[in-house]
C-alpha cells in the first residue's frame, strides 16, 4: 500500500507542478463564468444554460486532463528511464501502475471539485437549487475514472500519441455503444453481427454514466440507478487497470 501511495503522491505532485494543468483549469473556469453571459443571450431558461454549459465544462476539461496527463503517465517514465530506479525499489510492478492511476484520479478529483464547485456556486448565485447537479458531477468523475484507466492501459505499451488516439476513440465509441446494438438489428446474421455484439459487450457504455440532461431538467433519477451506474463504472475501470498491470508486468525495459 505504501508503494502505491508514494507513487500516487509523486504523480499528483508532478501534475500540479505542470502549468498546462492550470491553463486547462483556468479555461474551464472562464467557460463556467462565461455561461452567465451566454445565458443572457437566450430567452427564458437562463439557469438551464448555466447548468448545461457548466456540466459540459466539468466533463470536457476533465477529459482533456485525463488524456493529457494520462497518456504519457507510464511511457514518460520508461522513455526518461526514471522507471529503472523506481522498479529497483521494493515496489511491485502492479503497485507502480496502481499508484500512477491513483495519482491521476487525485488530479481528476481535484479538477472535478474545483470546476464542479464553480458550477454549483454559479447556479446557487442565480437563486436556484444546485443539489440536483451533484449526482451528475459525481458520475462525470466515474466516467473520467474509466477514461483514465484506458489512458494508463494504452500508456503502458505505446507512445503518447497513439495512446491519446486510443483513449479518445474509446471515449467516443463509449458514448456510441448503443449504435452497435442498433446496427446489429439492421444487418444480416454473420461476421458483422458478431463484431457488433463483441464491440457492444467490450466497449464501456459511457452513456450509462451521463445523467447531465436529467440533472439540468430536474428529472429525478432513482438512487438505485445512480449506484448501479457508479458500480458499473468502477468495475469497468478496475478491469481495465488489471489489464494494464498484466501488460506492464510482461514488459521488458531494454
Amino acid at each position, binding site marked *: 500500500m*505504501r*508503494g502505491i*501511495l*508514494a*507513487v500516487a*503522491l*509523486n504523480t499528483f*505532485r*508532478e501534475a500540479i*507542478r*505542470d502549468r498546462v494543468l492550470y491553463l486547462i483549469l483556468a479555461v474551464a473556469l472562464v467557460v463556467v463564468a462565461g455561461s452567465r453571459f451566454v445565458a443572457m443571450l437566450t430567452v427564458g431558461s437562463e439557469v438551464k444554460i448555466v447548468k448545461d454549459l457548466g456540466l459540459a465544462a466539468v466533463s470536457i476539461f476533465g477529459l482533456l486532463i485525463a488524456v493529457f496527463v494520462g497518456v504519457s503517465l507510464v511511457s514518460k517514465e520508461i522513455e*526518461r*528511464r*526514471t522507471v*529503472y*530506479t*523506481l*522498479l*529497483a*525499489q*521494493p*515496489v*511491485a510492478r502492479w503497485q507502480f501502475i496502481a499508484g500512477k492511476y491513483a495519482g491521476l484520479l487525485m488530479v481528476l478529483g481535484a479538477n472535478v471539485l474545483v470546476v464542479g464547485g464553480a458550477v454549483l456556486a454559479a447556479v446557487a448565485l442565480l437563486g436556484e437549487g444546485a443539489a440536483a447537479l451533484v449526482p451528475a458531477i459525481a458520475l462525470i468523475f466515474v466516467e473520467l475514472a474509466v477514461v483514465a484507466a484506458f489512458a494508463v492501459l494504452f500508456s503502458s505499451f505505446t507512445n503518447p500519441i497513439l495512446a491519446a488516439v486510443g483513449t479518445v476513440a474509446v471515449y467516443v465509441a463509449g458514448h456510441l455503444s448503443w449504435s452497435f446494438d442498433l446496427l446489429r438489428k439492421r444487418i444480416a446474421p454473420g461476421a458483422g453481427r458478431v463484431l457488433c455484439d463483441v464491440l457492444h459487450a467490450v466497449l464501456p457504455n459511457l452513456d450509462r454514466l451521463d445523467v447531465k440532461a436529467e440533472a439540468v431538467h430536474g428529472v429525478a433519477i432513482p438512487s438505485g440507478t445512480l449506484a448501479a451506474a457508479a458500480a458499473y463504472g468502477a468495475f469497468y475501470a478496475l478491469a481495465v487497470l488489471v489489464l494494464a498491470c498484466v501488460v506492464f508486468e510482461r514488459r*521488458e*525495459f*531494454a
Partner: protein
Amino acid sequence: MAPVIEIRNLRKSFRGHLGIGSHLAVDDLSLSVQPGEIYGLLGPNGAGKTTTLKVLLGLVKPDRGTVTLFGRSPREVAARQRLGFLPENPYFYDYLTAVEFLDLYGRLHGLDAAERARRIEKAIDRVGLRGREKTPLRKFSKGMVQRVGLAQAIQHDPDLVILDEPMSGLDPVGRREVRDLILALKAQGKTIFFSSHILQDAEMICDRVAILFKGRLRAVGRLDELTSPEAKSVEVTVRGPVPAGVAGGRRENPDGSTLLTLPGFDALAPAVAAITAAGGTIAGVWPRRESLEDLFLREIGRAQVEERVS
C-alpha cells in the same frame, strides 16, 4: 558464505525493430559476488554490462540461466528490499527538489517521516549536497544529479549497492569522492557491484573484477591473480650521459634527463653500473607491472583474434 549475487549461465538477447533479427547481449555468463566485496564488471561500451545489471534488477527477463539476489529472484519485491541502485547517466524527476526526491525513495522503502528526515540529512552530507537541498533537480549539473542518485542508492542502508557506471561524467574530484564512498561502504560491510569502463578507478578499489566483451566473460578473479606480478619493465630516469651499450628504449625528458625503459629487473644492475661508470646519476627507478588496462587490452585483443579465427 552464501553469495549476495549469483548469476548462472545467463543468456539474454533482444529482438530487433519490428521483431526482425536479434542481438545477443549476454551469452553464458556465470559469476558470483560474495558479501563484503567490491566487484567490478568491466568491459567496453556494448559489452553487455548494463544488460547484466538490468537482469539483476528484474527489469528484463533472461532467455536462459538463473539470477539471484540474496538467494531470491530479483522479480520478488523482498529481494529488492536490501538493494540500492544507481543507473547509468541517471535522470530523475526534475520537478522535485533533492529532499523531495530522497523522501519519495524513503517512502518506497517504508520508512516513517522522522526516519526519512534523519536519513536524508545524513545522505545529503555524505554526498556533499549541503546547501542544495531545496534546489529543483532540473537545475542540477550532471555531477550533482549523480550525487543525488548516489544518496538515493545508499540512504536506506542497503546491504548490496549496484552502480551502473558510477564514475562516468564526473570530474576527477567527483570520481575520487565516489571511490572513497564505495570504500567507506565496504568498510561498513556492504557489498558493492558496479560496472565501469574507467579501469583506473576499478583498479584502485575492486577486490575482484569480471571482464566482459561482446556479451561473454573473458576473465574473472582477483586483480593480483589476473595481472602478472612480475614487472614487465623498469623505468629509470638518468641525469647525465647514458652509455650506448645499455639495453632498452630511451627518451629525452623536457628537463634534459633521459627516461630509460629496461626490459626487466635483471637488466637494472648492469645498466646502473654502466651509467654511474660513465658519470651519470640515477634520479629515479619505477617498476611497471601489468595494469588492469594491459590485462583488459590483452583479453580483448585475444577475443578479437579468436573471433577472426572462427
